[in-house]
């Protein structure tokens, strides 16, 4: 098996991101998947993108333009 490299974009591990860790993932081209060196996450690009949307649930007002700061 050949060594892993970086993918087209430099995806971070979505599960580590959820616990406030920025961990770049590496790409295993044999298995066509990204994987995390620190936790047990693996997934293809579609899965990473889907998980990245889930991450955003913590930002309850992410889409709001707030004008009242009282």
């Amino acid at each position, binding site marked *: 098996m050949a060594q892993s*490299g*970086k993918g087209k*974009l*430099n*995806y*971070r591990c979505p599960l580590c*991101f959820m616990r*406030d*860790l*920025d*961990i*770049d993932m590496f790409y295993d081209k044999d298995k066509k998947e990204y994987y995390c060196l*620190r936790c047990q996450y693996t997934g293809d690009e579609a899965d990473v*993108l889907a998980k*990245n*949307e889930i*991450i*955003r649930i*913590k*930002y*309850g*007002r*992410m*889409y*709001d*333009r*707030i*004008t009242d*700061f009282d």
Partner: protein
Amino acid sequence: MDNTFVVNIIHRPEMVPEYAEKVTGQGKAEDIGRKALLTESLDIFKFQQETAHKNGLKVTIQMTYASLFNDEACELAKKDHEQYGDEIALSLLGLPCKEFREKYKTKDFCIWMFSMEDKKSIVDDVFGKFYDRFGFYPESTGSYYMDAELTNYIKEKYPMVKCAVATCWEEGPKAYHTCNNSWYTLFDGGPWNPWIPSKQNTHAPAANEAEDSGIVAIPHLSRDLLACYDGNGSNFGTHPQNVLRGMIYDTKTWEYPYLYNLIDQYRYLAKFNNGYSYNMMFVGPGWLNKMGRWEQPYELLKKSYEDGMAYYGELKKKGELIDMTMAEFADFYRKNKSYEEPECALWKDILYGSDKQLFWYADPYMRACVNMDQGGAVVDLRPYASKIKWEVGIGTKHVQDASYPFLIQEKYRAGYFTHYAGEGTVRSAKVSYNGEEVDLCLCRTHATFSQEGKKRILTLDPVEIEFYDLTVKIGTRIIFEEGSSNIQHERTILEMSNPDAEVEINEYIVACYGTTEYPEDMTGITLGVIGDNGEKTINYEYKCRDEKLEGASDAFAVIPAIDTKVSLSTDSKEGLGYIEEGYAFSPMFKLGYKKHISDKEVIKTWLNLEKAN
């Protein structure tokens, strides 16, 4: 001052952008002299300059050491200085380049981490090189952190320097953790908005001319005062790509209202600071990498920078923003601020959708955070009164750790909630009646801000405490008085379901000291309680002891490791003062004051900070 929102925009031509070499160079052996890297770096600088100018905004160009070897970078700076009034300044970031590595034989790049000898030699080197290039010395400088010894040296040798980027708010253990424990920018505990650093410790503002370091410090970015306190600071600041790093944008529309909400909440702070508010935006070139950054393609990185500048530009056109260079800002600050005027921020959650509200306060004697969601408890406290001498860098006791020590830090050393045993750091009060006890930390509320002369007052919405057969309504006012070095808590029993009842109020502070999550040695701390009836003391030995004194006026702790004395005092004669030593599983101390009070009664206590040697 009428509403004045000042913005500093800073760019640095970095020949080897942080991240770029590691990120875009993955799979290649390190080569910081790569031609492609140099060309890309300059292109980014040009793009940033053009974007600011297109929006009518003035820039402070912070030349890096590496860029001083580059003719094109220097010419660009001169041209933009002439055409747009940009300031040509000098950054102590961006040291890495072939010339630097050859001369200093190290890969270190953070100025505050070098030995004092190297700091001096690097400063002379870069200032000298700058002079050779431009024929004058810079008025502004900066890094992510500037230790007091470094600033003092610069000021002594180059007295024209009047402004510096000197810290990055709450960039400490949290940023370190987020970066897989590999990013050593450990400097929690400073002000979030500009200040005049003292000669003794950069974080602690000067109280007078004798303490004045001679510069006006600005923070590296304006950061979210709630999100950054419990999260990765680098996701929540006036740095468009930091917001992208936090994934706080709509992936379909590429919109990020949070960036504008953050800028606007900073503008709103004028309400608490005599009409003045401030923003700083400083995007390093590594964030506008052609290869993209993490999930974000270059197009999105670029769009976010254009949008950020456009928003500032729009505010300027409406007359709601004044753009200044750093040197101009230093003059403005000196003209409009006094040493003891505090920086205040009543801040609300604008990201997560909670109703939480914090109040941040900083002056030459303390930095404090009051949490309204915990009944007005003080959840972070830095004793600036002690102006701790805290040298950093190779050859000192603190090679990397430049944080200002805390007495209270609810995230690192637990607040109200602990697991199973012991106590965490917080300053709150407990109310007891007939064997039942309620901590005000569990009474969620909100505050309004007011100012009376030299007093900044937080008035909390009253809270109700429900005991089995008694309901008590309590009002709290928290008063910060300029120059007093204390925080006054004033509690009033506003109403009781049984007006003849008496409840016991227990005002307390649980504290320790440190700069990280881990406990420090508490041995050497002296606890005492003092009053007309004498004095009792405990020398800390983790023996879980306590002492009480009827009619006490003060309960105190002297912490030699951080030159600090903290005390809780009262003007009442009829209460019971107490001190509690902790134990190994609860390495804290507690100072408190208990009193029985009845309907309409008021109890006042002060948390005082002093330097102790």
